[in-house]
């Protein structure tokens, strides 16, 4: 199983994600620079967190025009799993792979804290192992993490079962407590919290089993596909 981690100028969780995929879950992982072509045999791709292009203009908006995005779109069209975490989620939204937008937190500050997610959709490649309503202790770390979408499109999200994660307590005034969503088909998932920071017991002060299931779901999905 081959998983790609895309590195944009200013990505800074790429090495953390790589470590988790390779050392914790023993996957075959490769970095891809944002100007690289993605090989055809890739089973899944992850857009890690960070500050691509220093969050200039708006988080993720410049990276959304990177050459690699067209290959990511092709993978998404093929139904392959695509995960965007934090800045990766912002990039997926800005490149219109996912609907909505991420705004500055209402505190206007960067927020780094632990929170709890509730699984709302267990049909995606990253949540298939969860029970609906299951809780995941996980940290957030962002300045522009407030998910926003207008009423009409929120109704569509709900109708299409595109809301993947909600916050247990709405920490940043995101619409409908949304912490993560997917595309209509369910294979492209974006989330603001950082699963890669929660899977190892040494650094997870609460319970690392639930966040592990995000990656175990992926392994089950791409394993099953083969």
């Amino acid at each position, binding site marked *: 199983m081959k998983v790609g981690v895309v590195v944009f*100028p*200013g990505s*800074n*969780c790429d*090495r*953390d994600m790589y*470590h*988790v995929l390779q050392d914790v879950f023993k996957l075959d992982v490769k970095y891809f*620079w944002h100007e690289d072509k993605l090989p055809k045999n890739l089973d899944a791709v992850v857009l890690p*967190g*960070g*500050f691509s*292009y*220093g*969050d*200039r203009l708006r988080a993720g908006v410049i990276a959304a025009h990177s050459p690699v995005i067209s290959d990511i779109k092709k993978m998404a069209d093929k139904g392959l799993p695509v995960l965007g975490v934090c800045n990766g989620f912002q990039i997926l939204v800005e490149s219109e792979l996912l609907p909505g937008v991420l705004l500055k937190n209402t505190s206007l*500050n*960067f*927020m*780094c*804290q632990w929170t709890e997610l509730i699984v709302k959709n267990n049909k995606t490649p990253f949540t298939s192992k969860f029970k609906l309503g299951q809780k995941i202790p996980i*940290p957030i*770390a962002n*300045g522009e993490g407030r998910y926003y979408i207008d009423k009409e499109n929120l109704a569509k999200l709900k109708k299409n079962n595109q809301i993947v994660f909600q916050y247990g307590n709405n920490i940043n005034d995101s619409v409908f407590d949304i912490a993560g969503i997917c595309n209509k088909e369910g294979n492209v998932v974006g989330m603001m919290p*950082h699963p*890669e*920071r929660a899977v*190892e017991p*040494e*650094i997870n*002060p609460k319970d690392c089993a639930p966040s592990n299931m995000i990656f175990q779901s992926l392994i089950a999905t791409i394993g099953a596909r083969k």
Partner: protein
Amino acid sequence: MSLQKEELEYLSKKIGRQPNDTERHIVAAEWSEHCSYKSSKIHLKMLPNKGARVIHEKGYDSGVLDVGDGYVVTVHIESHNHPSAVEPYGGAATGVGGVIRDILSAGTRPIALLDGLRFGDISKDSHAKWLFKNAVTGIADYGNCLGIPTVGGEVEFDKCYSNYALVDVASVGFGKKERLIKNHANAGDVVVLMGGSTGRDGIGGAQFASDSLETEDRSAVQIPDPFIEKLIIEATLEARNQGLIKAIKDLGGGGLSCAISETADAMGVGIELDVTRVHTRESNMNPAEIMTSESQERMLVITDKKRLPKLQQICKKFRVSCSVIGKVTGNKVMKVTNNKTILASMPAEIVANAPLLNRPAKEPSYLKRLKNKKQPAPPKDLSKTILTLLSSPNIASKIWVYGQYDHEVGIRTVVKPGSDAAVLRLDNGKYLAVKIDGNPKHCYLDPKNGAMGCFEEACRNVVCTGATPIGMVDHLQFGNPENPEIFWTFLESLKGITEFCKHFEIPCVGGKVSLYNETPQGPIKPTPLIGVLGLIDKTLLKPQKIESGDALIIVGTTKNELGGSEYYEHIHDFIGGNAPKINLAESKKNMDSVLQVIRSGQVKAAHDCSKGGLAIAISELSITNNIGCAISLEKIPQEKLDYTKLLFSESHSRYLLVVDKSKLNSVLSILKKKNVASSHIGTFQGNEILFSDNKKPVAKLRVDKAHEKWFNSLRDLVLHA
């Protein structure tokens, strides 16, 4: 902002002629107090800097410690006080940037940041509040963007910093020993300037920082660009991995003048540089401006002609500008040209080594006066006093600050901010504990013991995680050294730190001196800051949840030492009395015993006893674990003290240990065998913190109420007051 008359004469004599204008600008930047340490250098030699783990290489701007298994940690500390006092956002942000590049220069990846922030009294001073808020945002925006976690630090407010700011930043790096850059250069090598463009920002910054702050010279403050810094980090590390770097130096204070002269001097070579090759932000900059600009995010790299194309390729990949600005020569001369015209030509050794000063020192007259000042009467309601102290911005939770810092990125942070020391996991399975501590209130009353106390406090904090201190960095911040009374406080602090280093065999691996920290209202209190690195081979003490029935043990003696305490200053607005002293033998015995007990695996949590005294240390344990505690004051090892002294004295060498009651006797017997002052003083239970003396209640607080005050006070003060 120019050379002193005697310095000009010295320079003329050394080079055998009158220096021209460009040469004067270059030398003035390099001979500023900030770059040359001319007031402090002869004294800094007393600090022991050798040790089994210490790795010395020429031209390093950071300390390097071997942590075994082929790995090293690097550490450095710097301040950005003057810039932060006039432009807190940019000043604090570029302070972070500067220290990170020092870590990078050794060829290691920065893995953690800590910052010490000091401002005027924010409860009354709205300017101080503005400085504080913006400095925190500056640090957050810079460090977060780079993906380097800010894992610890301290925040303190004191009237002596009114209209001023102390922003200290320490950074820790990690890497493979074999990949350390061993600075060397040969004639014919090329000199490359990598990174941001050179602009008019920060011109004369080093001289600006080498005088008291009287004007708000914003043009001397550099402009931060963390995105470029991030690209430089990755480009430099990639170049290091490919072995393309022969020597490297960060551009900081003094800009190119400093980087070129110091590099040439350290390598024992000459460097010839053409200012027209420097990529600039503006087209019409004159050579002196180019040579002294302190524009940020720039690195000087020396490589050879063969490897240059590969280096350029890496820069191209990251879109980092890179100019070949000169070459290495064999004649030990620093030569600056404008195309073919020679602008400056002086031996690098002379430029890089300012004439040193041996300034006079005299014990300040205020010391005796303050010691004998009549001490305030004890308060009637001790419970209320404890609550007031818990809401002091110096004691209250700093979550408003560290909640804005990404302290998890890098996935190494095992013990997170808010504890005694932060703990990072290393790739060899060991752990690194880090902490910085200062205490200007103690240092003002007793600079020597105060400085030793800061050192011990930082050690106590890392020891509470189970770590052995393996190295330290110091940052010595004082007022105008030309004032003999101020210089005396500098020397006393330095002597204290030296004694502590020697007694504990902890090498000083780096540091910085920052002088002229004063405004027209006067100098700051002496503010030496100590950063300590501790290494944990096996037994990491990660604080466990305290449960009902757990026992509280104290190690160390509480003494009549209320001078400089938060109790005196916050409750009574009183400066005076006996500041806590360090007894080195007792200090070492207590520290060793606590480490032994922690390593026996029988301790659930350890907490050091410092600001606010015993009352606050115990309250903090209760608050953060949401459980009450019943404490018997009569059991505390002490020099017959009244309740205020017992509760609020900030005596050093004290530790609180929490153990399961089944382990109590075993732990007490280890401590007894070591012959340290120690006692079982309380039991965790219920929802009240209750201090009593032979069962007679002395002070009582509800945990939820105490939590509310402690948790919210600082945030409320910043956002609502």
